[in-house]
C-alpha cells in the first residue's frame, strides 16, 4: 500500500477516489431516472390500468355484447379489458365468417344486405340472464333475430314483421322470456302497402307495439300480438318485473302526430307519453279471439279491447324507460329536459283501478301524471337512459351534458356525476337491467369520439368508455373505440355462458355431410351437379369439380375437424363465394356455373402449415345449356 502511495502520490490518489465516487453516484442517478415510474408515482393512472388489465392468456370477467348499429352486426368484447373478441353477423353478409354466402344464411337474410342492429337483449329466467339466447332488433328492415349463445350464431331472423315500420323499440325480454318486446318507430297506414296522403297522417297512419312470442324450448320466435296505437313514434321500452311483471313500457315522441320537420313539429307539447301495456291482458285478448288480423298478425285495437294499454305523460321527447331491479319503479327521461321522472308502479295500478285519467288518445286512457310519478330527479341536461347497480343506485346517461349521473332510488338524490367523451347515448351496467345487477362496471356508449384516438380520417369510430362504479365515486378506467354503432349493450358474467368450440360430429344430422375422403363425390343429375366435399388439414376433397357451363352446382361441404379453431374456408374467385365452415359443421353452397373457364377454389381461413396448398379447381366447360347466351367472345 505504502509503495502505491509512494508511486502515485497522496493527492493524485485522493482525486482518483473522488472521481470514482462521483461516477458511481452519477451512474446510480441515471439508473434511477431511467426506471419506470412506480405505481405510487402514477397514482390514478396505475389504478385505472390495473382495473382494466387482463394479463395475456387470462380471460375477462364479463362478456359485453354490443350492437353494431347499421353494420348489421353484434360485437363481442371482454370486460374489463374492453378487448373486441368476435363479431356476430346478424342482418348483413359478413365474408369473414362466410355469413350470407351459404344457402342456409342466405335464406335467413333474404335479399337484404343491411340491417340496423339496435338493442341486444339476453334471454331471462325469473328476471335474471339465463345466457341461452341474445335477441336483437333491426330498426332498418323491421326484423328481429335470435342468436344462440351456445355457438354465438344467428339462428333465426323473423321479419320483416308485418305492420312494423322502423323496429326500434326492442329488444326487451319479459322476465321468463315469454315475449321479446319491440315497437314500431314510424307510423304508416296499415296494412302496409296502403298509401294515404301525408296530410292525413294524424288519422290514417297507425303505430304498433309488438310482443314477439318465444318458444321456451327452441327459442323460435313468432308474432304473439300487436297493439294498435295512434301515429306516435315509439322509441324505447322495458319489461316490468316483480310487482310490475306482466307490464311492458314504451316511450313515445311526436305525440303531436306531426309530419314535416319533426325537430320542430314534434317538440311543441311539453309532454309526450309512456305507454304501459298489459301484455298478459293482450295475450288473453288474442286467446279470446278479440284481436283483428292484419297482414296475418293478431292486432288488438284499444278502441275495442279495454285494459290492454294506458298512456302516462312523460317530459317531452323521451328516450329510455327503464324498470328498477325490484320492479317498483320505472324511470322515464325526456331528452330535452334536465329531469328524469321516477314513476311508481303501485301508484300506476291504483290510478288505473280508480280511473284517475287526465284524458285519452283515440280511446286509450291517459293517466294523471301527478298521481303516478314519485319523483322528478334533477340529473342534468338531456337524460336518455337509465341502468342500475346492486347498491340501489341508478345511472342515467346525459346526452347534452356528456355525462353520467349516479342517483339513489327512493331518496332521489344525485350522488355523483362523471363527464364522458362524448355525447353518451345508452349506457350499460353489469347485468344492470336484470332483477339482480352486479354493479362494478358501467360502459358509456358514446356517439362521438372527437379524435380521442389516432387520427383515422373523417370516418371516426364511436367511443365506449369503461367506468368503475364499485366505489362511491365513479372512475373512468378505459377508452375503447368501436365500430358503428353501439346503441345498447348487455354485460353478462362470463360463467353464465358455456359456449361450444366444436360442433360434435354426433350432432351433425345433415344428410349431405360426408366424413371420409372415400365418401366425397361429384354427382350429375341432368344439369344439376351435386358435390359432397370435405375440408380437413390440408385438403378440400374432391380437388377437382368438372361441370358444364349453365349447370346448377350444389356443394355440401363438411369440415371434418373436431379440434378447436380448425376452421376452413371455401373461396371461389370471380363467383363471389366465400364460406367458412367451423369444425364439425356442414354448409351448402349453391350457384349457377354461368362463366366458363378454370376457377381455383381454396381455403380462405388460415388453418395449417400447408394451408396455402389447400385448393382445388372448378372446371366450367363452355357449351352446356348457357353456351348460346353466354359464349365467350
Amino acid at each position, binding site marked *: 500500500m505504502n509503495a502505491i502511495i509512494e508511486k502515485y502520490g497522496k493527492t493524485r490518489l485522493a482525486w482518483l477516489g473522488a472521481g470514482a465516487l462521483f461516477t458511481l453516484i452519477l451512474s446510480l442517478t441515471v439508473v434511477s431516472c431511467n426506471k419506470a415510474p412506480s405505481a405510487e408515482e402514477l397514482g390514478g393512472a396505475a389504478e385505472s390500468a390495473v382495473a382494466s388489465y387482463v394479463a395475456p392468456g387470462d380471460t375477462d370477467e364479463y362478456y359485453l355484447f354490443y350492437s353494431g348499429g347499421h353494420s348489421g352486426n353484434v360485437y363481442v368484447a371482454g370486460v374489463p379489458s374492453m378487448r373486441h373478441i368476435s363479431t356476430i353477423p346478424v342482418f348483413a353478409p359478413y365474408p369473414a365468417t362466410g355469413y350470407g354466402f351459404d344457402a342456409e344464411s342466405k335464406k335467413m337474410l333474404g335479399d337484404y344486405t343491411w340491417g340496423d342492429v339496435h338493442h341486444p337483449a339476453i334471454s331471462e329466467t325469473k328476471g335474471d340472464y339465463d345466457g341461452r339466447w341474445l335477441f336483437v332488433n333491426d330498426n332498418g328492415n323491421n326484423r328481429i333475430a335470435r342468436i344462440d349463445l351456445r355457438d354465438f350464431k344467428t339462428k333465426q331472423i323473423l321479419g320483416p314483421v308485418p305492420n312494423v315500420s322502423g323496429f326500434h323499440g326492442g329488444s326487451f325480454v319479459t322476465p321468463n322470456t315469454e315475449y321479446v318486446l319491440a315497437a314500431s318507430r314510424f307510423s304508416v297506414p296499415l296494412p302496409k302497402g296502403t298509401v294515404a296522403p301525408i296530410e292525413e297522417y294524424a288519422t290514417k297512419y297507425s303505430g304498433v307495439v309488438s310482443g314477439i312470442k318465444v318458444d321456451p324450448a327452441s327459442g323460435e320466435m313468432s308474432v304473439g300480438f300487436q297493439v294498435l296505437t295512434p301515429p306516435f313514434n315509439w322509441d324505447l321500452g322495458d319489461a316490468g318485473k316483480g310487482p310490475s311483471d306482466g307490464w311492458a313500457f314504451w316511450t313515445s315522441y311526436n305525440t303531436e302526430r306531426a309530419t314535416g320537420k319533426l325537430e320542430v313539429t314534434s317538440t311543441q307539447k311539453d309532454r309526450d307519453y309512456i305507454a304501459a301495456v298489459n301484455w298478459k291482458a293482450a295475450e288473453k285478448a288474442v286467446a279470446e279471439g278479440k284481436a283483428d288480423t292484419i297482414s296475418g298478425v293478431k292486432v288488438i285495437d284499444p278502441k275495442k279491447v279495454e285494459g290492454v294499454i294506458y298512456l302516462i305523460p312523460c317530459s317531452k321527447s323521451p328516450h329510455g324507460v327503464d324498470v328498477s331491479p325490484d320492479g317498483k319503479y320505472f324511470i322515464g327521461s325526456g331528452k330535452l329536459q334536465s329531469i328524469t321522472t321516477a314513476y311508481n308502479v303501485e301508484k300506476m295500478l291504483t290510478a288505473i283501478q280508480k280511473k284517475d285519467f287526465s284524458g285519452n288518445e283515440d280511446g286509450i286512457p291517459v293517466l294523471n301524471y301527478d298521481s303516478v310519478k314519485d319523483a322528478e330527479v334533477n340529473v342534468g341536461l338531456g337524460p336518455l337512459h337509465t341502468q342500475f347497480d346492486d347498491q340501489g343506485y341508478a345511472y342515467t346517461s346525459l346526452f347534452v351534458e356528456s355525462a353520467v349521473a349516479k342517483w339513489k332510488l327512493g331518496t332521489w338524490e344525485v350522488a355523483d356525476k362523471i363527464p364522458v367523451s362524448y355525447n353518451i347515448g345508452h349506457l350499460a351496467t353489469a347485468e344492470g337491467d336484470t332483477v339482480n345487477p352486479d354493479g362494478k362496471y358501467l360502459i358509456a356508449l358514446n356517439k362521438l369520439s372527437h379524435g380521442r384516438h389516432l387520427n383515422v380520417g373523417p370516418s371516426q369510430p364511436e367511443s365506449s368508455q369503461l367506468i368503475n362504479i364499485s366505489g362511491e365515486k365513479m372512475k373512468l378506467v378505459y377508452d375503447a373505440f368501436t365500430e358503428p354503432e353501439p346503441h345498447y349493450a348487455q354485460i353478462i358474467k362470463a360463467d353464465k355462458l358455456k359456449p*361450444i*368450440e*366444436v360442433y*360434435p360430429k354426433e350432432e351433425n344430422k345433415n344428410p349431405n355431410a360426408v366424413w371420409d375422403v372415400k365418401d366425397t363425390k361429384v354427382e350429375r343429375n341432368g344439369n344439376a351437379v351435386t358435390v359432397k366435399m370435405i375440408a*380437413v*388439414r*390440408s385438403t378440400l376433397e374432391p380437388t377437382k369439380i368438372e361441370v358444364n357451363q349453365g349447370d346448377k352446382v350444389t356443394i355440401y361441404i363438411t369440415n371434418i*375437424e*373436431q*379440434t*378447436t379453431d380448425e376452421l376452413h374456408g371455401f373461396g371461389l374467385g370471380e363467383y363471389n363465394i366465400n364460406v367458412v365452415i367451423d369444425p364439425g359443421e356442414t354448409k351448402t353452397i349453391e350457384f349457377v356455373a354461368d362463366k366458363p373457364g378454370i376457377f381455383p377454389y381454396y381455403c380462405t381461413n388460415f388453418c395449417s*402449415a*400447408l394451408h396455402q*396448398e389447400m385448393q382445388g379447381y372448378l372446371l366450367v366447360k363452355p357449351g352446356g345449356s348457357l353456351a348460346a347466351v353466354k359464349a365467350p367472345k
Partner: protein
Amino acid sequence: MEGKTGIISRLMREASFFDQPLAPRCRLAILIGVLALIPALFFPLWHMTFRSNQYPDGLSLHIYASQLEGGKTPQRDDLREINALNHYIGMRPLLESDFSEFTWLPFAIGGLALLALRATVIGKMSNLIDVFVLFAYFGLYSFWSFYHRLYLYGHNLDPTAAIKVAPFTPPLIGTQVVGNFTVNSYPGLASYALVTFAVMLTAAILLSWKSAKAQKQ
C-alpha cells in the same frame, strides 16, 4: 456357497416341493393378485402425451387392454388430432381396428386370472409356477409387441408425405422430442395392476418355499 443348478437339482430331487399344498397365506396372496387384475381390464395400460406450444395441455393417448382412446374434451378429439398431425409425416392413422391385441389381451388376462384362481383352489405349488411362467411369457411378449407396434408406426412412413422425417421409434417409456412435439410415454394403472399380480405370485412362491424349508427342519 450353493450354485443355481444346486437349487434346481435339489428341487428336482425333492419333487415333493411341486406337489406341496399352498399355505393359506399364499392362497390369500394369489387371491389379492387376481383381484388386482380386475383394474387391468378397465384402466389404461399405457399413456402417451404429446406437448407443444400449440397444445400446452398436451394431446393424450390412452392404451387400454381392449381399446385405444384419445383425450376427449368438447374442444378437441385428441386421437383425431394426433392422426391429423401424423398424416403430415406420412404415419398411418392409429385405428383401433388395426390392433389385434385388443381382441386377445382381455382374454389372456382373464385366462391368467382363472389359472391363478385354480391354483388357489387346487392349491399346489406346480399350478402356481405354471401361472407364473405363463404370465412372464405373456408380459414379455406384450411388451415386445407394443414396442414392435411403435417401431412399425415410426418406420412405415408414406414416402409421399409432405414432411419427410427420418424413421424413428416413439418412446416406449420416457421422453423424446419429435419435431415440435415432446412425446412422453409412461405406464398406466393397468400396468401397475399387472405388476402387482406378478409381485403377489412371486410372494406366494417365496412364502411357500420358506414354509417348506421350515417344515423340513
